[in-house]
């Protein structure tokens, strides 16, 4: 996950109040940020609130971003993870709405039995992830689902790489047990 010249330039413009630059930043990074928030908070409504809070901070604190200190994506996901943790601690987790399921499953396959099977499999994974403590769920969302390296996740979570690895080991062990996956 490398910073691009585009992100640094857009942030410089955003810090100067450039609305178009900020909109471009949001459009570019929203899908992944939304996915991370969704994996942690487990429903669309909370995920949207978390990313809203995160990007509001990006706008408000744009002047504090220093490209020579970190990549924009690292800075962004530090804010996103904090927004997710904050949201999770302040509000009860909501159940997943039927719309979330419908969209997640929609891939053009008309076979009802296949859809049911997919829904059950997806539900099992979601339930397993939901059982994880919040910090493990965050590490899993970043590393196992969104492909962050351990170092990138450590920077975003403001912890050491060893701490992230420890979280992942414990999470992996629990997920494998709950999902009935044998050791590789």
């Amino acid at each position, binding site marked *: 996950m490398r910073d691009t010249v585009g992100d640094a330039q857009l942030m410089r413009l955003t*810090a100067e*109040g450039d*609305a178009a630059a*900020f*909109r471009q930043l*949001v*459009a570019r990074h*929203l*899908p992944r940020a*939304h*996915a991370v928030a*969704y*994996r942690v908070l487990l429903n*669309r409504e909370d995920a*949207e609130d978390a*990313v*809203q809070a995160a*990007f*509001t901070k*990006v*706008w*408000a*604190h*744009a*002047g*504090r971003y220093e490209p020579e200190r970190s990549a924009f994506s690292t800075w962004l996901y530090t804010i996103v993870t904090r927004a997710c943790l904050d949201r999770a601690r*302040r509000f009860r987790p909501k159940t997943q709405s039927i*719309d*979330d399921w419908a*969209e*997640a*499953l929609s891939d053009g396959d008309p076979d009802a039995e296949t859809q049911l099977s*997919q829904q059950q*499999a*997806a539900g*099992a*994974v*979601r339930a397993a*992830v939901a059982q994880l403590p919040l910090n493990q769920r965050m590490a899993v969302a970043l590393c*196992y*689902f969104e492909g962050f390296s351990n170092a990138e996740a450590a920077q975003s979570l403001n912890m050491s790489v060893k701490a992230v690895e420890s979280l992942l080991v414990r999470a*992996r062990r629990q*997920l*494998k047990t709950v*999902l009935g*996956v*044998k050791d*590789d």
Partner: protein
Amino acid sequence: MTEFERRLQQWKTPQPATGLSDRIAREAMRQPQGFAWREVAQRSLTEWRYGLVYKAAALAACVVIGVGVSVSLNPPAAHEADLDELAFIVGI
């Protein structure tokens, strides 16, 4: 891909709602830039848990200062002097 990774990938996330990007940007830009302290101040007033450690420390400091000021303004010896002065004024 391992079996574990394959199982995890069965849980897909929905795409962000249509128009969410514009809505987020629009809502975010309603906030002023560069005034992070306002947000902190507002949260500390509306959420009792926010900054709880600092609030507890401030309260303890107020208690200590209050006790200290109270003791320094009302030392035991000064009380007698006040009574003597009062008696003189009254003419006893």
